[in-house]
């Protein structure tokens, strides 16, 4: 506490050394081995009874140096590494990366490939959101929604497996297009999945939306208003639940999103309950997009899945930034190319990491029981936070 940079020491006391505790306070280690930290997040809590005086995230338990690793791989070889960031939504990771390379390369992606990419993205969004719903409900003690959401997630993962061979780390996009064309009959299977989906979402809602206990546990918990959200750089459902209709798919459109019809669900109260509602509403919107993609793809059969890409991908020296609306928020890649066949620097803007920053502010003053709700509501994946 003595000779550190002014302004930092007081805010962030060191992890080592005696804890700076008040008379009634207790230091509580929350994680990294805790059932509700969604991986290996560690929080150092200062609690007064169960009331949280301060919460300090301690991250890095899953750090693998992915961004440095990118620099050692050629451009096509980076794609599988992006799978392992947000490992429950790898399609959108792939997508953000190939977008930035295509931008610098100036490649035109065939329409069919764009539609398939959007289709994969939206199915991935559904699978990520249902997984969020499962774990967030489990954190608050509701064990049943978990199994119902996994019913849908399994179908999506099976469909992914049929398309690209992988269930989780899809590696399903290539610079300039896609690795493979759709298997015959795949589109019908996707359609069969979407048919009961609306009804299935109603089932989740039946368990939670009007549940008194669920409402008591989520309304007014972890409030972060629009102004603070923007100051923290929050994106995704957290920002939208605060009332700001900001969605990269509309704000900075990419691929065929301008041609698709969908609404952006927006919340009002910026609390955990609104974030829940926004995500569930997004499930329904994603289904709408999936159906439109299916219609287009069925009307326009073809085999064109890849644009004109040079054999050796060497983007011209320069910089580019591209972002997609990942399930968790704005996922952006900032590429600095030096003209070689490897990225000179590839920086990631991971939504989980940036949204996690606001956790101390959202958790402060709540009880330990609410902390798990707050961690859940941000929807973090530690693979993406630490990279």
């Amino acid at each position, binding site marked *: 506490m003595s000779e550190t940079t002014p302004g930092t020491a007081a805010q962030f006391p060191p992890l080592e050394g005696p804890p700076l505790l008040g008379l009634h306070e207790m230091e509580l280690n929350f994680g990294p081995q805790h059932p509700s930290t969604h991986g290996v997040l560690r929080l150092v809590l200062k609690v007064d009874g169960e009331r949280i005086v301060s919460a300090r995230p301690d991250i890095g338990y899953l750090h693998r140096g992915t961004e440095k690793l990118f620099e050692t791989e050629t451009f096509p070889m980076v794609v599988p590494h992006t799978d392992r960031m947000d490992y429950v939504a790898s399609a959108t990771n792939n997508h953000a990366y190939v977008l930035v390379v295509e931008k610098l390369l100036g490649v035109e992606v065939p329409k069919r490939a764009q539609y398939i990419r959007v289709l994969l993205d939206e199915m991935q969004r559904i699978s990520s959101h249902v997984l969020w719903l499962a774990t967030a409900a489990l954190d608050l*003690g509701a064990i049943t929604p978990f199994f*119902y959401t996994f019913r849908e997630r399994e179908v999506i993962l099976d469909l992914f497996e049929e398309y690209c061979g992988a269930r989780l780390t899809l590696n399903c996009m290539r610079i300039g297009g896609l690795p493979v064309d759709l298997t015959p009959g795949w589109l019908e299977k996707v359609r069969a999945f979407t048919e009961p989906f609306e009804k299935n979402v109603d089932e989740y809602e039946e368990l939670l939306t009007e549940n008194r*206990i669920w409402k008591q546990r989520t309304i007014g918990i972890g409030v972060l208003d629009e102004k603070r959200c923007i100051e923290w750089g929050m994106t995704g459902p957290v920002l939208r639940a605060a009332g700001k209709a900001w969605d990269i798919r509309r704000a900075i459109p990419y691929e065929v999103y301008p041609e698709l019809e969908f609404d952006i669900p927006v919340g009002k109260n910026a609390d955990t309950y609104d974030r829940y509602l926004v995500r569930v509403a997004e499930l329904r919107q994603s289904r709408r997009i999936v159906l439109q993609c299916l219609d287009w793809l069925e009307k326009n059969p073809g085999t064109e899945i890849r644009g004109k890409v040079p054999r050796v991908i060497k983007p011209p020296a320069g910089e580019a930034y591209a972002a997609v609306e990942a399930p968790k928020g704005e996922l952006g890649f900032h590429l600095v190319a030096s003209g070689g066949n490897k990225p000179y620097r590839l920086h990631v803007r991971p939504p989980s990491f940036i949204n996690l920053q606001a956790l101390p502010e959202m958790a402060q003053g709540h009880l330990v029981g609410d902390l798990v709700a707050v961690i859940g509501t941000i929807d973090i994946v530690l693979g993406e936070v630490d990279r």
Partner: protein
Amino acid sequence: MSESLVHYVLVPFVKGLLTVILVATAAGILTWIERRGLGRLQIRKGPNRVGPAGFFQWIADVVKLVFKEDVVPSRAEKVIHLLGPLLLFTPAVVVLGLVPWGPEVTLFGVTTPLHAAADLNVALLLILAVSSIGVYGIILAGWSSNSKYPLLGGLRSAAQLISYEVPMGFAIVAAVLMAGSLSMVEIIEAQKEAGIWFVFPGLVAFFLYFVSGVAETNRTPFDLPEAESELVGGFHTEYSGFRWAIFFMSEYGNMISIGAIATTLFFGGWLRPFPNVAWLSFLDVIPPFFWFAGKVFLFLLVYIWFRATFPRYRFDQLMALGWKALLPISLANLFLVALAALWGAAGLKVLGAVLVLLVAGGLVAAWRRPARASVTTRMAAEKVEVRA
């Protein structure tokens, strides 16, 4: 062997032993029922490998737990750490010993009431006193573990105790007013005399008792002292092996005893439905003990159903529920029941009819309420983002 030796030593001993064995076995079987039941509710199978339909899973689990290493944290208070599970388990068994399982039976030439302990004239008071000791087990277990999560679990349990114990007491008083006795056997006989189970005039009291009972057994939605997703394991985080198994058994033992008390006070104990209606006497083919066990079993199913349905309350919300909702309701109900009981059996019947009609009316109203469009569907429709 003299008659008195059999009557005063052998029979009570055998019955006591049976109670302990019954609680332990029933707790084990109950875990199997719970896991299978949850499986059905959650579109999965549940245990299905050991024995037919996985029935021997609970035996396998017990064997595993017995042979597991018993880890005691290095700085724990060793004696109290050991005492914790016992303090929780003993009341569960004692309470079951005080509840009559059936009328007198004759087995092996000995006639005895189906009742582990004696039919005390203050049985209900003793049950209240004994069952609240169990919470000390949780608090002491949490405190003695020398760990922060169990400590928080123990404190939550204390907060929980003071919130539900009072409405629970008042709910029991309502039953006592209707029966005019504290003896469990006499309460059952009073229900036979009155011609109705006390659940009808005591509908509110029963509801209060059962809700408080769920809180007392630390079950969903009041499983705060355990709260796996918040406090890892709560008060039993630092327990392993058979000590943990005793906690587990006491939880299920407590569920059984809450069900047994609710059955005795409000559902006529071992009596068949409508014990005074003669043409229903064919129901007597089922022995009284099985009526009792069946009713208790239904309560246990409700517990399991709760677990699959509800999220968990926060402990301040539970306290608010206890003090601001359950306590005033229990007082008002006590007044109502007292008036009806003053009037006599007819009063109880009128009160019961009114309450049943009210509940039926509420159910019909809820049933006929038009289904609302889902919130999330509305959300998108009301706040459509203008397409760019």
